[in-house]
């Protein structure tokens, strides 16, 4: 083995390797190069120790329905695996079957059923995550409810009839005031606990819509909707109503490198090329001026453009369109800095979802490991 096996590149070289170049009309240096055999004399074999020392997580925002954090020092393949697991493989509870007894509203049965399916629900976490298990569809010829139990099926009901509001003025034009139940909202859905569900889903743990104000249908007097629903657990790969996230996405950290000074009116124009808060204006200091070859000589007190917060940048490349900034700025993105954004639909907390995706990936790897063991035996 070569003696320089563990030679590490300089910080500057490391940054160069990890920067995706964003040019006027092209994108350069897009592939990662940190794999064994790419750089002679350097060892890039994956080791858990190296990963642990290089990896870090920074939280920017952590609310139940919206979390944003950075994964630093991770490969795109892993970051993308987490994103895909978040969208398609974490189970949630959603309406799957709709049994319509009566529907005289203008919305058709199948459209109504579809709308109901997309309504996100919340409930006791312990019950949803641990008590409720997968539902298996009965085989053809078997009784339709052969596999429906309290631990895999949640029953909901929706019974609404629109009536004329006798107290309203005869000239009332607003249907919401002139009639009772002119609008059917998600909050009108009633949870009907069966069996042991009463233990897990009572009081504040009841199965309920996350957003009670979702409009399901509009009614006029004497129109009625009378139906029951069965909820099952499912995954987003099967139907997007089961996806636990509204969006789960990541972007790479934008980099703005001002290579030559941008001063005065140019600096103000430069600031306007980026979203608010990305570029700041500061006076040229004595220190700047004293540095020979910095380009600040003789500009003491003028304003200069400095990068304040490149994370807020949208990488619109507007700065590259202007001749006065040519050769003065370099745009790029950090290849191993992923700014994740997870918006939960409400059944899980957003940060909990990410941990769950890690758990899922670990489980997949365990399964694969067993397959490999079986293969060599």
């Amino acid at each position, binding site marked *: 083995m070569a003696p320089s096996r563990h030679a590490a590149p300089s910080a500057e070289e490391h940054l160069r390797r990890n920067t995706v170049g964003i040019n006027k009309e092209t994108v350069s240096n897009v592939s990662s190069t940190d794999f064994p055999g790419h750089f002679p004399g350097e060892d890039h074999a994956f080791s858990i120790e190296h990963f642990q020392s290089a990896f870090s997580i920074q939280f920017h925002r952590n609310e139940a329905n919206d979390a944003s954090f950075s994964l630093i020092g991770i490969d795109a393949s892993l970051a993308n695996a987490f994103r895909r697991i978040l969208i398609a493989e974490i189970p949630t509870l*959603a*309406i*799957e*079957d*709709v*049994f*319509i*007894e*009566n*529907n*005289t509203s203008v919305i058709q*049965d*199948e459209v109504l*059923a*579809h709308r*109901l*399916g*997309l309504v996100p629900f919340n409930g006791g976490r312990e019950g949803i995550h641990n008590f409720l298990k997968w539902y298996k569809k009965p085989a053809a010829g078997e009784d339709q409810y052969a596999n429906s139990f309290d631990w895999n099926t949640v029953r909901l009901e929706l019974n609404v009839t629109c009536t004329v509001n006798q107290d309203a003025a005869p000239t009332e034009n607003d249907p919401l005031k002139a009639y009772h139940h002119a609008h059917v909202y998600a909050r009108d859905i009633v949870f009907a606990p069966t069996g042991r569900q009463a233990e897990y889903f009572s009081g504040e743990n009841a199965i309920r819509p996350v957003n009670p104000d979702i409009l399901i249908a509009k009614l*006029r*007097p*004497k*129109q009625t909707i009378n139906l029951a*629903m069965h909820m099952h657990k499912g995954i987003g790969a099967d*139907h997007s*109503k089961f996806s636990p996230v509204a969006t789960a996405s990541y972007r790479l950290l934008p980099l703005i490198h001002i290579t030559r000074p941008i001063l005065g009116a140019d600096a103000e124009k430069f600031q306007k090329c980026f979203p608010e808060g990305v570029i700041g204006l500061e006076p040229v200091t004595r220190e700047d001026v004293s540095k020979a070859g910095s380009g600040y000589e003789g500009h003491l007190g003028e304003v200069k453009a400095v990068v304040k917060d490149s994370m807020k940048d949208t990488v619109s490349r507007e700065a590259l369109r202007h001749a006065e900034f040519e050769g003065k700025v370099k745009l790029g993105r950090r290849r191993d800095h992923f700014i994740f954004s997870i918006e939960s639909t409400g059944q899980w907390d957003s940060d909990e979802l990410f941990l769950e995706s890690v758990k899922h990936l670990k489980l997949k790897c365990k399964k694969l490991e067993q397959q490999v063991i079986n293969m060599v035996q």
Partner: protein
Amino acid sequence: MPREEYQVPTTSGASSAGAMTRGATGGERHDSRAVMTYICGDCGGNVTLSKDALVACPHCAGRVLYKERTKRMVQFEAR
């Protein structure tokens, strides 16, 4: 009688067998000219129409009438 077979959703029994209706083609026989109940699209009230009656709701003169929906449960997948 099989459950799936269509039933006219009215109560009037078989009567006046053999009475030919005006629009019927020769040879076709109707057990009865069943009285159908419709639902007015304007006021939501029940409307019964007899032969040759004007297609309009007697309560509100609405001309849009809907057929009554089946009384059976209909199952859909929420997809």
